[in-house]
């Protein structure tokens, strides 16, 4: 155990030392400006420890076995803090199956670090500032999404189809609602 302790101590020392060196030599990276600082660090509301409140839309997704791809994408785009905001937020959450239905290579491509912005745009297209039940969604023609574009709503057989996707389940969350959908919504490119 002593050895283990020593090892950790040395490792920490190296890490801290290298930190210091790095911050001294670091030049400001302007490209970071276009990213949200609140999301480029692991700090913010997403990291507040709260095991009493009703789970946020983020936690609902994390806890779901059918949304591993979505959660990975949210983490890759560093959008965690946005999804724990007071909102209210309505998240259309494509299942893992919906992601596999995308043309081959699409997802892998989006998950590359250089495509973070495009990925974030797609994910924000799945988020509405609002909190409406599935039934109530039938009263809309379209929804204004967080990426500044609209998604169309059609009512087919009495059910709301959101951007062509069907709502499979709806889970109320602490800061909004998660509607599980069977397709990935792709933002229109003509705007």
């Amino acid at each position, binding site marked *: 155990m002593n050895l283990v302790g020593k090892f950790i101590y040395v490792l920490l020392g190296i890490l801290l030392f290298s930190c210091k060196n790095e911050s001294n030599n670091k030049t400001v990276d302007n490209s970071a400006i276009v990213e949200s600082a609140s999301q*480029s660090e692991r700090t913010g509301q997403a990291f507040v420890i709260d095991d009493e409140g009703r789970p946020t839309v983020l936690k609902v997704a994390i806890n779901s076995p059918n949304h591993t791809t979505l959660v990975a994408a949210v983490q890759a785009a560093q959008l965690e803090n946005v999804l724990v905001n007071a909102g209210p937020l309505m998240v259309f959450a494509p299942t893992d199956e919906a992601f596999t239905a995308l043309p081959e290579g699409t997802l892998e491509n989006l998950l590359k670090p250089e495509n973070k912005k495009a990925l974030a745009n797609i994910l924000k297209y799945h988020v509405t500032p609002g909190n409406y039940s599935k039934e109530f969604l039938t009263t809309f023609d379209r929804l204004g999404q967080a990426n500044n574009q609209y998604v169309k709503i059609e009512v087919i057989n009495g059910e709301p189809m959101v951007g062509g996707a069907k709502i499979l389940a709806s889970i109320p969350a602490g800061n909004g609602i998660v509607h599980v959908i069977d397709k990935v919504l792709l933002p229109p490119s003509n705007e």
Partner: protein
Amino acid sequence: MKNILKPLLAIGVFLLAFTSCDNSKKSDSRSGALAGNVAEKVYVAPGEHDEFYAFVSGGFSGQLSVYGLPSGRLFKVIPVFSQDPEKAWGYNEETKPMLNTSHGFVPWDDAHHPDISQTQGVVDGRWVFINGNNTPRIAKIDLTTFETTEIIEVPNSAGNHSSSFVTENTEYVVAGTRFSVPIPQRDMPIKEYKGNFKGALTFISVDPQDGNMDIKFQLIMPGFDYDLSHPGRGKSHGWFFFTTYNSEEANTLLEVNASQNDKDFIAAVNWKKIEEYVNNGGGTKVPANYAHNVYDDETHSATSTMKKEVLVVNPAEVPGAVYLLPTPKSPHGCDVDPTGEYIVGNGKLSANLTVHSFTKMLDAIENQKFAGDAYGIPILNFEDVLAGTVEQPGLGPLHTEFDDKGNAYTTFFISSEVVKWKVGTWEVLDRQPCYYSVGHLMIPGGNSQKPWGKYVVAMNKITKDRYLPTGPEVTQSAQLYDISGDKMELLLDFPTIGEPHYAAGCPADLIKSRSKKIYNLEDNKHPFAVKSEAETKVVRDGNTVHISMSMIRSHFSPDNIEGVKVGDKVYFHVTNLEQDYDVPHGISMIGANTSELLIMPGQTETFLWEPKQEGVWPFYCTDFCSALHQEMQGYVRVSPVGSNTELKWSLGEEIE
């Protein structure tokens, strides 16, 4: 060994991930404090003064709090639309009329947007104005006494939210209605809202000498919701800009129905033109009923006057005075840069920030390039007035302020950050996270031609784990950033009262030398004031008893009173004879159904006591005043109804 190394490697990777060295932005307060001299930047040594005053709205506490920057130290909580047992504001007989309205005594309101008076576009530190949102009122706080000295009710208004912003010479303090309502109020079906409800934009003139407020005119606008406003300045002086939402004129489920239109409007109002029209006899006087409450520093008393008439102006009567500028998605903040050229619409459901050009607006008006009209008010083309767009700076823009170097700072609620961008090029220069979900922000002088761009205060809506927890309700919170460099730096979290909706700040030097130290006893014109112990007395008038009492270190005069009976209304009119800085006295009587009084040197205040039981009841000084504070006390003898106890009063009659 191999078996040990594996988990060790895992721990190593874990640590590497969580002590990531690659954070170019040391924004968290803890890492920031370690990284630099952050603590020094907010440290104000004992006995030293802060550089700036900040007047922070107390939101639903109805109060206004006074802080120092950069320390974040709280100096005073000024009761405005509230009762304050600490100061007896709204409890003593003198200040109760300040809370009078057409609905009677309303001892609470939702205080939102403080703004400091200006002269020639520069903050002058004379008064702070703040709006009561719920029962529409505008209050004025005098910055020599730091007391609320005037409150005017706003008729034909409801949810007084796009208020209380001043024009650049404090010609007017402006109050815009959030809710449109029937004007005049009447019994009608709610679903007939559209076209029938109206929104009043109220221009309250401010006397340049004594600051007296008077409603000059109300502009009766279409039935939208008017959210926030700011004055034109410099080249755009004479105009006022109001954001609108619910241009759909919905009357139910606004979260859906008021978000249908791609664009709402910024209403541009040429108030100088309307003022000229009104000065030449224009407008219509209509019946109204609203309270005008004024506190007088010499009588130390407020009076409430009900006003019965208000002048209204229909935009159609003054062609060329009002235009609508299309602005995306339910804009909240409506902010004008220090030059007066740019008007920023913070579309809260938009991911972009829209900036309009005043010059382009005038040009479009001159060339009559209109896209249509709303109830006869010309709508300009979005593209014709657009100066530029800040593309995707964050999510949920709310409010923008400016520094003195051509930069703007916008808060984003959903992405919880302050974003700095360049006015004119619209490029994003920096961003810093807020902990958490920021609403408004404030740069001292940030709503004027001359901002002092050293600090920005972000006022957050959510606090969660930032401080020691205090149960489900945790403190409200503000954060201070240094904005003197290229990059913003988070310096300090500090707790605030109520909900800090907005704040106004200015250099302390503008105010502190004029701060009053005592009230001159000789100038005290309170009808029950006593200038010396020789003048103290007790007078019975039926079952009302007036005690004209004095207080000085360390006794009351009189301190023994007999002849009071059960069922009497006993008024204690108490004058503090001290003429020494910071020697207030307090007084409270056992069983009095009100708060203590806290009386400043030279001041007179009154509380009512209605004794219900016979006996001998003590009163005492509630503010530790002197070495003999605990000796500062007295007795009132209360006799049964109909008794013949003689009315008499004394001080020190039996000293041995």
